[in-house]
């Protein structure tokens, strides 16, 4: 039971970070039907900028929390600028081009961003300064650290405020209108270019926060960290129904939990000895494990495939004929 509870805590923490990243994918897809594969790289840039700022400030002797906040405070606007820049330079000129063109451009942008980061921050794995003293609390046998609590709180707060923004403000109404039908929204007096740019900026800002959280949680940052994280968040967005904002939140959290439980229990379930298969390795309480916990990363993509096969519109998505 301890173990199960702990796996849930682990899964929820990782999942809430996936959810925040997935929002960036889903918001952009919802509004211009573009899968922005460069979003994972924005997250990486967020982590890297925060890394540099925090490293710069540590000798200044400010309180740790203030340093991390300043780090995040620098990462968010820079990532917003990157998000705006790529929309303006790479995607806007291609808005009316065939679907495939912006998709390939997105892959190109992602490679460019990765290599810019490589040039600035080197290829080394960077140890994120661990300045916030991490306390561990035990709740019902499950260990939860202060950093984990902060991540959960920040992620759910961000998700709630985004939901309010999208469903309760004039800007959100404009975004939803543009998502439904850009031409008509334009005729109604909505500045579509502005709304699309704001969507990119918001997504990038969320990505920056996710990057900082990822860095402080795992204690590492590297220029390649965005690709797997981005792919997992993309899977989460598809799981929830791409283009659907609550779907991305649900998909992210679910994916984190599935991954944690999957990696935690697959070894036990695929142990042939536990199933009573008579093997030489089983003698004297031995085991013969078919799939080990190294299949952890496979779960995200297994989920992606299963969703695409059985419920292509995702958990909360609606089947929309002309967009599929």
């Amino acid at each position, binding site marked *: 039971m301890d173990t199960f509870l702990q796996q849930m805590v682990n899964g929820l923490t990782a999942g809430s970070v996936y959810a925040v990243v997935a929002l960036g994918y889903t918001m952009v897809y919802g509004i211009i039907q573009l899968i922005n594969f460069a979003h994972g790289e924005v997250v990486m840039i967020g982590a890297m900028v925060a890394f540099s700022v925090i490293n710069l400030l540590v000798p200044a002797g400010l309180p740790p929390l203030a340093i991390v906040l300043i780090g995040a405070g620098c990462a968010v606007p820079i990532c917003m600028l990157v998000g705006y820049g790529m929309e303006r330079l790479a995607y806007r000129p291609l808005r009316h081009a065939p679907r495939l063109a912006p998709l390939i451009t997105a892959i190109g942008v992602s490679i460019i961003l990765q290599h810019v980061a490589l040039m600035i921050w080197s290829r080394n794995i960077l140890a994120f300064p661990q300045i916030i003293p991490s306390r561990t609390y035990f709740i019902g046998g499950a260990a939860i650290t202060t950093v984990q609590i902060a991540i959960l709180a920040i992620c759910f707060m961000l998700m709630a405020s985004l939901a309010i923004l999208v469903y309760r403000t004039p800007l959100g109404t404009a975004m939803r209108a543009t998502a439904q039908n850009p031409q008509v929204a334009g005729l109604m007096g909505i500045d579509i270019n502005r709304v699309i740019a704001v969507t990119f900026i918001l997504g990038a800002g969320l990505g920056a926060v996710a990057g900082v959280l990822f860095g402080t949680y*795992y204690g590492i940052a590297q220029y390649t960290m965005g690709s797997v994280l981005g792919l997992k968040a993309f899977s989460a967005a598809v799981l929830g129904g791409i283009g659907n904002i609550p779907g991305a939140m649900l998909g992210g959290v679910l994916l984190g939990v599935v991954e944690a439980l999957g*990696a935690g229990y697959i070894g036990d379930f695929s142990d042939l000895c536990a199933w009573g298969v008579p093997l030489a390795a089983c003698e004297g309480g031995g085991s013969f*494990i078919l799939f080990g*916990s*190294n299949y952890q990363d496979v779960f995200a993509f297994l989920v992606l495939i299963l969703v695409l096969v059985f419920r292509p519109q995702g958990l909360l998505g609606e089947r929309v004929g002309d967009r599929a």
Partner: protein
Amino acid sequence: MKNIQIGISAIAAAIALIGCGQQGSSGGGAGAEVKIGHVGPLTGGIAHLGKDNENGARLAVEEANAAKIKIDGKDVKFTLVAEDDQADPKVGTTVAQKLVDAKVVGVVGHLNSGTSIPASPIYNQAGIPVISGSATNPKLTEQGFKTQFRVVGRDDQQGPAIASYLATNNKPSTVAVIDDATAYGEGIANEVEKTLKAAKINVLPREKGTDKTTDWKAILTKLRGRNPDAVFYGGMDATGGPLLKQGRELGIKAVFSFGDGACTDKMKELAGDAAEGLLCSQAGIPVEAADKKFLDAYKKKFNADPILYSPFTYDAANMLIQAMQKANSSDPKKYLPVLQKLDFKGATGKIAFDDKGDRKDAEMTIFTMKGGKLTPVAVIQGGKTQTYDEFVKAAK
């Protein structure tokens, strides 16, 4: 259809001819320039170790040039052709072929066992001697290649060393063994498991991550439920650091022990305070126990301290050069037999190869993290354990 087949075989024959021509000319390298290859990852998670290895070899080559070595009565200039294998087996073989095509006469590398093993047949076929300064997987020298050498110990010496130290000093009753599913990680983890089981210690079923895993919590949580007294991880520091940090966050109190891949000062940065008290082993002797002359020269040239295996790649490059000098030829065919029998005294002590190309009587050192610094505690040589202080005293 038949025409196509004839066409293909004609092309194949042409390629074979070109191939022969190249091999024929690669022998006569006794000219002005002698190329020595170096391969290690210069990009990716362990690029810092790759660069360190390259620096070691580069220092040896530059010192040889400064000493104005003559071979066969002619002045020679050694050049180091440094390649990046990205720690990727596929890239490793491509790069090996590239070095063969560039007509290097000897190679120092690769850093990883996972890239060294697939690359070794390529060098063997070309008849080019290769000395690895850091690949510790036993399989590397078990393939019967006359061109393959290494100046570090093997996992089947290193694994038993750390495992027997753990067994006698920490006396655990249950140990969890994790590896990163690479040739290196799995190799050393297997040896540790074998030694622990021989010492009648209960070993939990193997857990595996990958060499890119950042989230170890699922695995560690599972292990926590089984309450091991010690954990061994076969893998590199880039993954070992997060593993250790997350293990402590989950409240695991077991002793964490690592092989040489995660026996670096970077563990302190990556795992923070959690790094305190870890145990780890390095094949060979500590960097700071290497020859003082080497340490000073390295520091002066690169303005940094050697990290891990550069004393070994330095020795490896020097051995190639010395063998060429003794054979009075840079032709691999001529100097290879000399290299095999070379009695060498280098920055890491006396080196001589056995029949397989392994270093005879390789030392293993056990470290612990104390006050944020890796501190050597014991040296194991030929199954004999000495404390580090005894070892240093005996060496002086």
